[in-house]
């Protein structure tokens, strides 16, 4: 038992090494990884790396308000005299938090429901689960998230809850497709005839074969969730001032276009770089695992 477990681990480590080698040979994926690592670094160490950490929250200095980019303020300052660069670094925190919290809330329920529905394809369980996902998928997630946010008090937390409530069906649908085709495979049938328990079949036989797809989707979704989060803040239903959320910053700055363009443009680019990073990594995974369905 011990021996086989060791070889298994060794093989897994080798597979990981091989995968990393292939991944790192693709310059585009590496670029994505670079973006994501940079953004994460800046987000985590924002209080230390940003030139004016106090500018992230309530801070007013009208003497320096509305300054264009300069050496002192690389991205310029906003109407309250706050350094945009520092606020962008702190803004990364909220964007990444949005993605991480939403995905950690939705992936497990979404995947479990998809596994179960796919395995019991054609039964009432399948019908109940999949028709429920149809209802949630009938309207684009942004609109339902907006509708939910509108009845709650606007805040970062409520925006995360609203997006999570809308996001699980995508995982259910993805895993449903995979698990309903995997259940007819020989290794699943073999497990069935040897009397393996249902949870063993679902989680030890079927799930491992879905992991690469789930992983790829998660990496792409980090980008989408960040986009939706910034859209919610943009209309004023997400993070509230003075929180330095990138979407809120874009919306606030839009009032001062075209004269003070830097207030809007730099946070907008910050959103794009973050989303681009996750997308490039996701595409790298997709090529690596040769997936089509994600």
């Amino acid at each position, binding site marked *: 038992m011990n021996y086989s477990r060791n070889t298994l681990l060794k093989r897994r480590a080798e597979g990981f090494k091989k995968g990393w080698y292939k991944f790192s040979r693709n310059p585009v994926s590496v670029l994505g990884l670079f973006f994501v690592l940079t953004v994460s670094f800046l987000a985590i160490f924002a209080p230390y790396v940003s030139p004016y950490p106090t500018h992230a929250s309530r801070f007013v200095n009208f003497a320096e308000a509305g300054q264009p980019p300069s050496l002192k303020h690389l991205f310029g300052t906003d109407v309250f005299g706050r350094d945009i660069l520092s606020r962008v670094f702190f803004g990364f925190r909220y964007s990444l938090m949005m993605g991480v919290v939403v995905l950690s809330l939705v992936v497990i329920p979404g995947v479990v429901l998809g596994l179960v529905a796919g395995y019991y394809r054609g039964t009432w369980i399948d019908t109940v689960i999949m028709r429920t996902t149809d209802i949630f998928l009938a309207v684009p997630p942004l609109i339902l998230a907006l509708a939910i946010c509108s009845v709650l008090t606007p805040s970062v937390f409520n925006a995360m809850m609203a997006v999570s409530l809308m996001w699980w069906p995508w995982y259910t649908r993805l895993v449903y497709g995979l698990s309903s085709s995997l259940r007819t495979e020989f290794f699943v049938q073999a497990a069935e005839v040897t009397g393996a328990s249902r949870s063993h079949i679902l989680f030890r036989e079927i799930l491992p074969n879905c992991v690469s797809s789930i992983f790829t989707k998660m990496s792409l979704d980090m980008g989408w969730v960040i986009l939706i989060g910034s859209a919610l803040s943009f*209309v004023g239903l997400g993070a509230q001032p003075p929180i330095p959320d990138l979407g809120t910053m874009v919306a606030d700055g839009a009032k001062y276009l075209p004269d003070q363009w830097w207030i809007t443009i730099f946070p907008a680019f910050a959103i794009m770089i973050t989303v681009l990073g996750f997308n490039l990594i996701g595409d790298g995974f997709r090529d690596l695992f040769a997936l089509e369905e994600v």
Partner: protein
Amino acid sequence: MSMLKFLGKRLALSLFVLFGLSILIFTISRILPGDPVRMALGSRAPQWAVDNLREQMHLNDPLYAQYYYWLTGAVRGDLGQSLFTRRAVIEDVREFLPATMELALSAGVIMAVFGILLGAVSGRYSNTWIDNSVRIFSYIGIVTPSFVFAILFLLLFGYVLNVLPTMGRLSPWIARPPVITGMVSLDALLSGNFAAFGDAIRHLILPAVSLALGGMAQEARITRSTISDNLRKDYIASAKGFGVPERLVMFKYLLKPSLIPTVSILGLDFASLIGNAFLVELIFNWPGFSRYGIHAMLNKDLNAVSAVVMVLGVIFIIVNILVDLIVAWLDPRIRLGAERGK
């Protein structure tokens, strides 16, 4: 026959989905903390007025009874009264929906036509500079939120170059053509008013393009990958070997089957396009349904919020059925009722 059966099944499922969606949105809109009536009437309104309106809106009844009133009304086309415009919601829908449809349809056409065109060219000439530029464009299109495109276009074309109008649907000095469809550009064309038509189109360009770019990039990417895959298949080589003209091979043998995955996600892209219209209409001051929806949401106008979501639900269902029909037309395996193989 199989096609009819397929359509019937889709319609039945759609009705079910709409019913479920109505329960979902009704529950969401009624669990809100705070009193929407109080909000609508203002804090200085007398209590009896609040009580009257609550009674009138059945807000004192249990939830299932409220749902029953709402649903029976909705089936008759009565979506209740908006708490803020103080009109029947259905009238608001009638007034604002055409503007959004005009925008969404133009964006949809731009998205589909240019997305497929770029993808096809990129796939046909894969790994050349054309292909690489299209791929870079796709990445930019996919990762840029449409509200950022909208703001950039506003800056660039509206202020810096000052070549296109950025606000509303028509210039103030141009009389609005008579309402036929509610879509200004189409109405102008139908009534033969070409000056208004030109002006309406100019107003449409920036919002429609900012909405279209994201989906266009998506479509281009998918078309590219299917075209370049199919290009390597034996049937293309054999068609060429038989001396079938290049143009025929490209359009009939290569493009048509390659469009199946593209068209299948067209419905999804159209959905996110309408979602993004919520932001783009706000930026370009486009007096449409989405802007109405945002205002309803920001003001906790329950009836209007539910109506907005339900109407959009109906639109998506129609779009998805259309997409399924197009896919079936493109894919003989579905059209002829055969099992769809891998």
